[in-house]
């Protein structure tokens, strides 16, 4: 009986599959407005998206596991760690030649909190480096949101902050949106 029951399901599944291929295009349209109310926590490992910095064939995303970054970048030039007050976790800073990576801990794992570019030997994948002009930036990224002397761009869980001194970029930082 159980077997035939299984068969019934399988046939039904197949039948529906066929019926569904006819509708085809609607497949991925399951608009998420109705699809399940639960706003789930996204597993960190799965959510590498948004702006990223690329250097020597390595892409660095915010919220990425630092372990993975370290294994491809190698040891930093300088390393600094500071225990936050009342032991709420160890914040770590990895200084490489042209950029600095900071991490934050969560459940004993360090994730990338921010990447800041320090000089003009590196640039963003979109071609912006320290010293670029404001119009270069807006051409590459769009208008952005102004904040002090900076333009801020947000994509998914990442934020790109580009700071200007007059018309020229003085700082580029990728950071995780908390």
């Amino acid at each position, binding site marked *: 009986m159980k077997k035939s029951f299984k068969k019934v*399901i399988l046939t039904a599944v197949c*039948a*529906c599959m066929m019926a569904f291929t006819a509708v085809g295009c609607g497949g991925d349209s399951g*608009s998420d407005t*109705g699809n399940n109310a639960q*706003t789930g*926590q996204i597993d960190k490992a799965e959510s590498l998206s948004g702006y990223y910095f690329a250097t020597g064939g390595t892409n660095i995303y915010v919220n990425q596991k630092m372990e993975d970054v370290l294994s491809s970048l190698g040891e930093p030039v300088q390393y600094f760690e500071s225990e936050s007050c009342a032991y709420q976790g160890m914040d770590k800073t990895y200084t490489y030649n042209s950029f600095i990576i900071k991490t934050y801990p969560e459940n004993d794992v360090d994730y990338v909190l921010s990447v800041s570019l320090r000089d003009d030997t590196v640039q963003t994948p979109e071609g912006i480096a320290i010293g670029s002009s404001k119009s270069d930036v807006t051409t590459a990224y769009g208008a952005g949101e102004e904040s002090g002397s900076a333009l801020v761009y947000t994509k998914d869980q990442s934020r790109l902050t580009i700071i200007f001194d007059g018309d020229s970029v003085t700082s580029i930082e990728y950071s995780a949106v908390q």
Partner: protein
Amino acid sequence: MLFTSYSFIAFISLLFLLYYIIPKKGQWPLLLFASYLFYFLCDWRYLIFITVTSVSTYLFGIAIDKVNVRQDEYIKEHKKELSKEDKKIYKAGMKKKRFRLILMCLVLNIGILAVIKYTNFTINNINGIMHAFGSDNTIGFVDIIIPMGISFYTFQSMGYIIDVYRGTYKPERNIFKFALFVSFFPQLVQGPISRFNDLSKTLYAEHKFDIKVFTFGVQRILWGFFKKLVIADRIVVAINILKDNPEQYGGAYVFVLMMFYAFQLYADFTGGIDITIGVAEAMGITVAENFNRPFFSKNIKEYWNRWHITMGTWFTDYIFYPISVCKPMLKLSKASRKHLGEVIGKRVPVYLSAFVVWFTTGLWHGASWNFIVWGLMNFVVIMISQELKPLYVRFHNRFNVDGKRWYDGFQVIRTVLLMSAIRMFDVYRDVPLTFKMVWNMVTDFRISSLWSSTMLNLGLDIADYIILFAGLIILFTVSMLQRRKAVRERLWDKPAVLNCFVTWLLLISIVLFGAYSIGYDSAQFIYNQF
């Protein structure tokens, strides 16, 4: 305002207090005020929508009734002059008038619902089709607010207008009373869909404080919180991880997800309804039951008679029935019998009506293909089991299993599994993935994969599993006890100390073991988006 928010608890506490200290005459107006306040606190713009529905339905109801009254008076006055034929013609004319009125009302209100809920879904599908034909154009989505519970109150109002149209009952003359019927706040969040003649019996009545009634209400609310906070919200973490990472969790984990989702949905939905009914009950108001221990059903049909009952009967009364007896359908029935023979011909209209019902049921649940396919799967399974019925009967007779306890158990488990499998369509992000995962579950089911520590990586630790397990045992036990007599009744008959102790225990376990406050996902009731 969510049921499980502190503000809701404060809101109902204050309301209960006011409800019983003000003059009894003021009770239902207070409820109307509270309901509108409740809606206002969620988002003031919601008020516009619910007011439009209330006022329009109210006016159309009166108008339809007027036509009826006029008809009766006319016939009475001209009794002698009118021939039978004249009467018929006159009546048909009046019927047309009524029909025009109800049509306007339905189009207006269902139109609002459709625009609000389905615009973006339609745009998405148009984009998909255009894409399929090689067009790069895309239509942008529209930013529309979806008033909380719009599906529920729209359906409730439409049920009312159809009943008035059919002459089941007279329309409500007091617009404020009617507005309360539409907006009664405990129902706004996630139903049930009440009938006017049912709810109005107690909704407008004057209620004296009765300790038993009040205690029962509060106990029911607590029970709802227990289901919702201790079970549903705890398990939801694991569900999210499982469904968001399908590559990682296939095979037996799909089954785990399936069962977790079944428990979660049940606890969440019935818990919410318990709170709704409990809040009403504490004020002496009787709201229709929406569940009747659905997981003890022996087949899908029975299941749908016991799960989300008010929705099921709504679809039967206001969609299935009218479609089955409408003229085109009768014609079709006749034609198909003639051309396809008795056996198939008889089925065509039934199938067609059922198809429409399940399609709309799916669509009603959510503007996505997931829900539509889910609805149609129910249709398919119900139709298949209908067709196989003679086979079952033969099987039952031959092996003499009918009524045997183990066979009942088998049927119950089978139904739960089947329903849970179908429900997977509203779990995964899209339909093809659901097929893929269910297929993966069947073909790659390795129970051994569960024994690794992976079960502890789902956001639940041992303590969580123990609490969940205990919670489910309690749920099951209560369900079993309920079969003969309501648990609250049983407790009431026992010494007060025991009753108090059980209530205290329930309260304490909610406070201590509920998955609320920071660190837990504040998952909304699944059903309040419908």
